[in-house]
């Protein structure tokens, strides 16, 4: 249709209305044929190539599966070096006045079964090993080691540091586990001696420190919420264990929790939901909630889930990476990542997604509550891969043992 009717009469082109389209016979231009051939080759090569990726990923999933089910267990010596040596030392001599020795210990001499029980339940309370009394906390590995790993480890320790030649199988370990998650810790060496009937030396009496009963208004905050403030447990779990990017609260230092709640309120730490929650909390409520969670002792439900390189993660946690000015995590966050109040939270058994999420938040500049901007700088130096590696490693660690805030990381007394 011409825009301008006048022009139509002058137009030079008046194609015939009766022309019907057809296709003339001309060759396909050779560049098109060449291009088609090249693409065809590329396509065939790509299709052939894709099988390698699948094999690699399946191998990774196999490893993750085995970590969970414990079908391939490393030798006891490797497990010891990875899990125990940082506290008990590679030679099993312990740390004077802080961590009991394994070498020559009457507990170890009793054989792998007692060792396995200790690994499963942990110890809270004073314990005498030979001439020294120690009053720290042995964590429970029930939720971080599989039955076959505990069997391997216990057998190794009994053999290497004791005189035993027994080995403990995975099924035997399984039978030692109590109902899931309800194994409470040994109340010091006294309970071990009493329940096992072994002669373990003169064990100090266990003085129970009452944790103080939970005030009903705090319990109500935790489990029922109040108005727009949703119950803590509704997101963080009835046991304070958390999941994915909702953190585990159980075992975090009380002062640290209080500081975080204040930081949410002030916007130094950004989380829209937490901001709504802290709006209506008084300072005394914050303190009491923090103490509740600090004293909670629950198994870990965290595990490596981001495909991070666990060996690299362990290296970062224990030794850091000084080529990038990254100190080891434990140098501030405490041995085994159990935390140091109020600045340094427990990292052990924290969910990998949460840890990486927070590290990324520091690197991205939208979490700004670390003293001296330490975490901002450390996290920026770590790349995505390292953040995932260290988060996965930390998730694999045993959870913080219980105890009131004052009693964590205290030093033992001489008898």
């Amino acid at each position, binding site marked *: 249709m011409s825009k301008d009717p006048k022009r139509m009469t002058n137009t030079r082109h008046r194609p015939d209305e009766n022309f019907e389209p057809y296709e003339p016979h001309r060759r396909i231009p050779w560049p098109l044929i060449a291009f088609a051939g090249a693409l065809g080759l590329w396509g065939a090569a790509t299709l052939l190539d894709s099988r390698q990726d699948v094999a690699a990923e399946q191998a990774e999933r196999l490893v993750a599966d085995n970590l969970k089910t414990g079908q391939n267990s490393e030798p006891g010596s490797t497990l010891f070096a990875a899990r125990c040596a940082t506290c008990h030392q590679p030679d099993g001599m312990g740390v004077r006045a802080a961590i009991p020795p394994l070498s020559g210990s009457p507990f170890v001499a009793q054989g792998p079964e007692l060792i396995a029980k200790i690994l499963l339940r942990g110890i809270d309370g004073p314990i005498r090993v030979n001439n020294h009394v120690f009053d720290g906390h042995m964590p429970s590995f029930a939720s971080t080691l599989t039955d076959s790993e505990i069997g391997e480890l216990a057998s190794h320790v009994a053999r290497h540091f004791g005189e035993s030649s027994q080995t403990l199988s995975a099924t035997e370990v399984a039978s030692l586990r109590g109902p899931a998650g309800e194994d409470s810790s040994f109340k010091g060496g006294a309970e071990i001696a009493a329940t096992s009937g072994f002669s373990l030396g003169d064990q100090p009496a266990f003085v129970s420190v009452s944790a103080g009963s939970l005030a009903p208004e705090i319990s109500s905050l935790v489990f029922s919420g109040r108005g727009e403030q*949703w119950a803590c447990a*509704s997101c963080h779990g009835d046991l304070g264990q958390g999941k994915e990017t909702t953190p585990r609260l159980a075992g975090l230092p009380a002062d640290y929790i209080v500081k975080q709640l204040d930081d949410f309120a002030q916007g130094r730490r950004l989380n829209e939901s937490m901001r709504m929650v802290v709006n209506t909390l008084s300072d005394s409520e914050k303190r009491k909630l923090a103490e509740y969670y600090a004293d909670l002792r629950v198994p870990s439900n965290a595990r490596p889930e981001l495909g991070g390189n666990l060996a690299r993660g362990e290296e970062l946690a224990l030794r850091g990476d000084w080529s990038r000015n990254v100190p080891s995590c434990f140098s501030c966050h405490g041995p085994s990542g159990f935390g140091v109040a109020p600045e340094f939270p427990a990292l052990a058994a924290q969910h990998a997604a949460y840890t990486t999420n927070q590290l990324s938040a520091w690197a991205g500049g939208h979490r700004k509550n670390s003293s001296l901007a330490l975490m901002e700088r450390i996290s920026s130096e770590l790349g995505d891969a390292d953040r995932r590696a260290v988060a996965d490693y930390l998730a694999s660690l045993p959870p913080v043992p219980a105890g009131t805030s004052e009693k964590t990381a205290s030093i033992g007394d001489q008898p």
Partner: protein
Amino acid sequence: MNRYLPLSILALAILAFATLLLVIAPGIQISRHAAPPGLKPYTEQELRGRDVYVSLGCVYCHSQQPRSPDQAPDGVRGWGRPAIAADYTYDAPHQLGTMRTGPDLLNVGARLPSRDWHLAHLYQPRAIFDWSIMPSYPFLFQRKDSAGPEDVAVSMPAAFAPESGVIVAKQDALDLVAYLLSLDRTYPAPANALRDDGYSQPVEP
């Protein structure tokens, strides 16, 4: 071309070939994988809630298929491990989604297991996230003068609360939230799981 019948037959044969490759073969492969032990079938309430999810068209903004850490930081955002085919055994229709105007929801029940949070968020997303463009769903709730004994009340900050009375969740809202809370696929994936592994990268220090 001059002959209609061969043209038609060939065209349909090509489509059949494509169907074999894109639908039948993967379908057979997928059907050989049983539901993982960690995956439970939906309860009746969760199924009702899923119907609400489908009928409101949540899938047009929310995906349900977290990707591999080798490809994208979906796991870091708390969206969960890479999804595998068997995760969707009980899903009909699938709600895999193709848009992330909002976050992936396959594991929302793991990272946000709070019923009350979800009720508040559905009623008015901007009460929690001021940057959110998610629609509000006031028609899933009703205003009442006071909450009855069976009612689930939703508290709103003053700016979004009604002049008087309380907001109470209707059954659809409760069912929908039950479905959302059931979205937890964090159990481990078996080694031979089916998913697109084309982004695989070697684990390097």
